[in-house]
């Protein structure tokens, strides 16, 4: 916004205006940057993490996948939850310490829950998650009212 420099009859305003113009162009610039830069991804897939090999160790990353059916194990005393994160390329064992979101763990016969885990991959091959986020798709279904 070069207009900011040409218009401000009162000198006390020009500083604020320039700041504003800077904030505005920074916002627009960031939008364009994120648009052209494919490198900044919100999450990786299980396959991508495997392909990274040792490069993935101890880096804070997010991984997306479905919770493998029947893989959730939780021990009540240590607050530890472990499960396998799964996609077409295979499985990634995940360990999470803490209280999971309320919706974690639901599944129906044919559909498995998608989650995003945020944390670090350890050389042992296990992913230590510091946050566990339940993903929900665009599908909405009415709750079935039990007929009996």
């Amino acid at each position, binding site marked *: *916004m070069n*207009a*900011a420099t040409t*218009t*401000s*009859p*009162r000198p006390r*305003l020009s500083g*604020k*205006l320039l700041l*504003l113009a800077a*904030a*505005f162009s920074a*916002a*627009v610039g*960031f*939008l364009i940057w*994120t*648009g052209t830069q494919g490198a900044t*991804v*919100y*999450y990786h897939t299980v396959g991508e993490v495997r392909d990274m090999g040792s490069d993935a160790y101890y880096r804070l990353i997010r991984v*997306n996948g479905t919770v493998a059916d029947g893989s959730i194990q939780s021990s009540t005393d240590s607050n530890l939850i472990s499960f396998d994160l799964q996609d077409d390329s295979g499985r990634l064992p995940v360990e999470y310490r803490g209280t*999971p*979101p*309320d*919706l*974690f763990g*639901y599944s129906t016969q044919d559909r498995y829950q998608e989650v*995003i885990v945020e944390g670090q991959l350890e050389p042992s091959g296990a992913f230590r998650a510091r*946050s*566990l*986020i*339940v*993903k*929900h*798709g*665009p*599908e*909405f*279904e*009415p*709750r*079935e009212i039990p007929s009996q």
Partner: protein
Amino acid sequence: MREVRTTELPGPGRLAILREPATAALYAALLLSMGLAIFMAFLFAPAERVQADVYRILFVHVPSAWLAFFAFGVVALGSVMYLIRGRARWDRLALASAEIGVLFTTLCLVTGSIWGRSVWGVWWQWDPRLTTTLIMWFIYVSYLALRSYIDDPDIRQRMASVVGIVGVVSVPIVWFSVEWWRSLHPTPSITNPGGGMPPEMLTALLVSVAAFTVFYVVLVRQRMQLELAVAELGILRERLHERNEESA
């Protein structure tokens, strides 16, 4: 010397404004559609299979988002028309719509955060949809701040128009962010083949969008009237000041 256009001053009484038939009709439509929207959101639409009742926040979250997009589109329209025609009325439309768009974006972010806490387990994530929405919010807050920093009306209106036109680029970016990039936020349920919702939910959503649209129209009208009155006040003050100086 600019001409003072006198607004119709409503007569005494708090509800005098309702004597205008168009305004009265709008307020009636507002109350009706809002009542219907709330009824449908809670009693007509069924509970959801996975999310139970909390999904109902959709009925305010989605209309807030759509009306914000619409409002920012109107800002661009008003800005273009102002630059072409030079009528202050178009600028008032842009200003009113920007302020209301910011309001709706704020409500969209707040309700989204509440929903996210309940379903995702987190209040906020730097996912593309959330991040771009926040940036869109910043752009229009800057637009409003810019207006308040420039005293000269002509310069203010022209600069604001430029920002109002450039800023609308953020709307398609926010809309398509869930298609272009990997995100946590779901893709649209209605237009996406993977999504969908039962007809009762869809009907309730559309009624809610209609109610929000009526509300948007009411707010824009009121905000434009305020801006007109403020502009007149400035001119009158100037004139009174001039006359007092003459006679002094």
